[in-house]
């Protein structure tokens, strides 16, 4: 297993290198000149040129890339052109918000998606199946900026029962800790802040989970249906085992393999930041930050954040593959298989 993990990590290196080259080139070829953004309305051509030279933007693109790569390998992702703050600091001040929302959203999506998918498969053709298909269709079809706004209008604007955005009442925000407010407030025993944080995360988590839930529901349903048609399930039933027991112990566990992959990939994409959700719900994560940075031609921030997202995807994929072995004892990651 260890050899497999090491091999996968080594395989990730060319992936991340390729990613960094693509992002680097795209930003330099298609983005506007950052000097005018950074120096503002009063900047003269001479001031802009001085700034470009000071920031290494007048060197050849190969030299620029090698400088970036050398710094990145030393753990230095550079400094934001716009805010003059370390990119690592900027990312880490926003990443916990993205992680917290992604975790809650994937839990909601997984629990609801698997339950709906299983019910739809077990009761194929019934009302529950129709309902599940409808929910999945709505989840896939309805854009978050629409469903999110509807939720805000209903629960915040009309009923006034939930906040419209943000992570927590700023005056209740925990200081220090992990940056995951639910965890931090729970550990510190500050239940007023915990309740407030939970209030704030309800709507964005629900809105964000809709799409993932729909995907998981459909995958669970089709995987379950396929498994329920297998010979060993028929055999188990023929032996006289109760239907529920067969569904749970024989069918569901085997149907979970492809669903695990989907959940893993969905979680990876949620960790990459959810631009629309973060924008609609004023959620302070990295999704919106990276898009804002693209618009401001803040090269170091975009490069650093995309690299981080790339690493996250690689790690999540690796974890999913390892979980495969856990869920299916037949799978072994031996040297031969690798």
């Amino acid at each position, binding site marked *: 297993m260890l050899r497999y993990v090491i091999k996968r990590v080594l395989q990730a290196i060319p992936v991340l290198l390729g990613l960094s080259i693509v992002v680097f080139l795209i930003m330099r070829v298609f*983005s*506007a000149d950052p000097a*005018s953004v950074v120096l503002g*309305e009063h900047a003269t051509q001479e001031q802009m040129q001085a700034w470009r030279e000071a920031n290494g933007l007048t060197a050849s693109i190969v030299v620029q890339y090698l400088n970036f790569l050398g710094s990145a390998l030393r753990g230095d992702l550079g400094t934001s052109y716009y805010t003059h703050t370390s990119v690592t600091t900027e990312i880490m*001040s926003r990443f916990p918000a993205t992680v917290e929302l992604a975790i809650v959203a994937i839990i909601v999506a997984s629990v609801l998606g698997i339950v709906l998918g299983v019910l739809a498969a077990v009761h194929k053709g019934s009302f529950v199946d129709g309902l599940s298909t409808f929910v999945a269709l709505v989840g896939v079809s309805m854009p978050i900026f629409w469903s999110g706004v509807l939720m805000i209008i209903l629960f915040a604007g009309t009923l006034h029962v*939930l906040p*419209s955005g943000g992570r927590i009442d700023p005056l209740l925000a925990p200081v220090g800790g992990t940056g995951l407010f639910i965890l931090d407030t729970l550990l510190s025993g500050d239940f007023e802040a915990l309740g407030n944080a939970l209030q704030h995360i309800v709507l964005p988590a629900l809105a964000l989970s809709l799409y993932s839930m729909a995907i998981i529901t459909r995958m669970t349903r089709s995987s379950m249906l396929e498994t329920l048609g297998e010979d060993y399930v028929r055999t188990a039933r023929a032996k006289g085992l109760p239907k529920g027991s067969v569904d749970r112990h024989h069918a569901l566990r085997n149907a979970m393999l492809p669903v695990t992959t989907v959940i893993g990939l969905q979680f990876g994409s949620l960790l990459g930041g959810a631009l629309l959700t973060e924008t609609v719900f*004023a959620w302070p994560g990295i999704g919106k930050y990276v898009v804002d940075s693209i618009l401001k031609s803040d090269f170091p921030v975009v490069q650093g954040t995309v690299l981080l997202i790339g690493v996250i995807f690689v790690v999540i994929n690796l974890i999913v593959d390892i979980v495969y072995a856990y869920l299916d004892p037949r799978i072994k990651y031996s040297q031969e298989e690798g």
Partner: protein
Amino acid sequence: MASTKAQISRRNFVKAMAAVSAGSAFALAGCGSQRAGGSSKSANGDFTITFAQASDPRGLDPAMVDDGESAMVMVQVYENLLQYEDDSCAVKPGLAESYEVSDDGLTYTFKIRTGVKYHDGTDFNAAAAKASIERQLEPQRTEDMPYAAFTFGSEADGNGIASIDAPDDTTLVIKLRAASTAFLANLAMCMASPIVSPTAAEGGKLNESPVGTGPYKFVSWTKNSDIKLERNEDYWDKDNAGKAKNIVFRFIAESASRVTALANGEADIISGIDEAVVSQVENNGDKVYKTDGMNINYLAFNTQSEIFKTADARKAFAKAVNVQELVDSLYNGYATYANSVMPLWMAPYDSDIQQAQYDPDAAKSELAALGITKVKCITYSVSRPYNGKGGTALAESVQGYLSKVGVDMTIDQFDWTSYKDAVQAGNYDVCFYGWNGDNGDPDNFMNLLSVDDTAMNVARYSNDEYKALIAKGLSTPAGSERDDVYHQCEQIVAEDQVWLPISHSQNLLGHKANVEGYVYHPTAVVFLRNCTKSA
């Protein structure tokens, strides 16, 4: 055996996950029944004002920023040697009790206020004020200080500060390279000029943790989320100390979301709204405050393009556009027709300036005679503070007028950053642009057409007589003689039809009905020290 252990483990894992999910759902459902909000969480009978704006400040060191979001926070924390009156850009004493200007307009002597401390306990005195300004002067100035050259000048341009001295704790002497009447207004600006703690500046963290002498102290900044300030209990001016115990700035990108946050009690004041949401704010029972802005929204003729080299051609184009009608229909009363480059509240002497009058028949015949049938226009796709409807809608309105006189105007639109590059490239006949005033001085508006830098002078206009007037205006003391200089400048711009002035937009704020006492200054910042909130 191993298999059984694994099975139990998996079962426990699933049970644990189910318990967590159920617990979360329970907690969420339980919380859902509570009243949302909490922006005004009271402590010891005091209150909090929550101000929602579109985005984070770029930073909180006045030397390093140029954006309105930064200014909104900084004006609560820092103070300047001089400050603006509440409703105009006339200056009055701030951290300087008084000042004297030498007859030649080159030496400024400030009497520095005593008994003032920075939030970090450092004493404020003339040396501290000197250090705050000196770090932005050459050679200490770095290339990423956006307002340093504008505010304090440069050696190469032969303007700004030649020397600065603090002979004792209460005296600050500044000598200029050339007389500049705008210098005093510059010192009251919310960029570059606020006086920072020398101790904090040396620490290098000022951009994240501002330390000034103002009525509010910085507490914390959660990026993309909020900034917290608390009242400075040791503030030197007891009559103008902060009323609210806490000020919270929240960052909510979407205008509609800010309106909902206001309605839901999550914010007390919201900025960055336009006329599209005014009725929504009012229908929610909240209030809209509007005030004249210090800006100009204009169409610039490229005076170096083949078809608009002459004033006659530019005038013929201008006659085709009914600007008054356009402004009324496009901005629905939230912008005023621009009779002149400067808003009339800034320059009342400009009320008699005559722009080209709308005359489509004359425009049609004159444009035809000049052979102008196609015009290449570039514009920006986003809304700007001086044009809430965005450049595209504005360009399309003008395009409609031109089509009526037989001219086909093509429109290329860009996002704002790309647009500035396109303007620099100069491949257009007309472009849309605008200007937000910095300091209320006429030079700040009128010199746009005298500089060689095409990032500012997008019309690429060059007129020696005009440049001489601008130079004269800058060194002439405030008064009727100076007003006359800028009046002449306005007349030249109108006669040469360098721009087609369109509108001056209004500044809008939304606020709860129980909130009052804030000052929405023409420079578009909001002073919150006297803001109160009734129960």
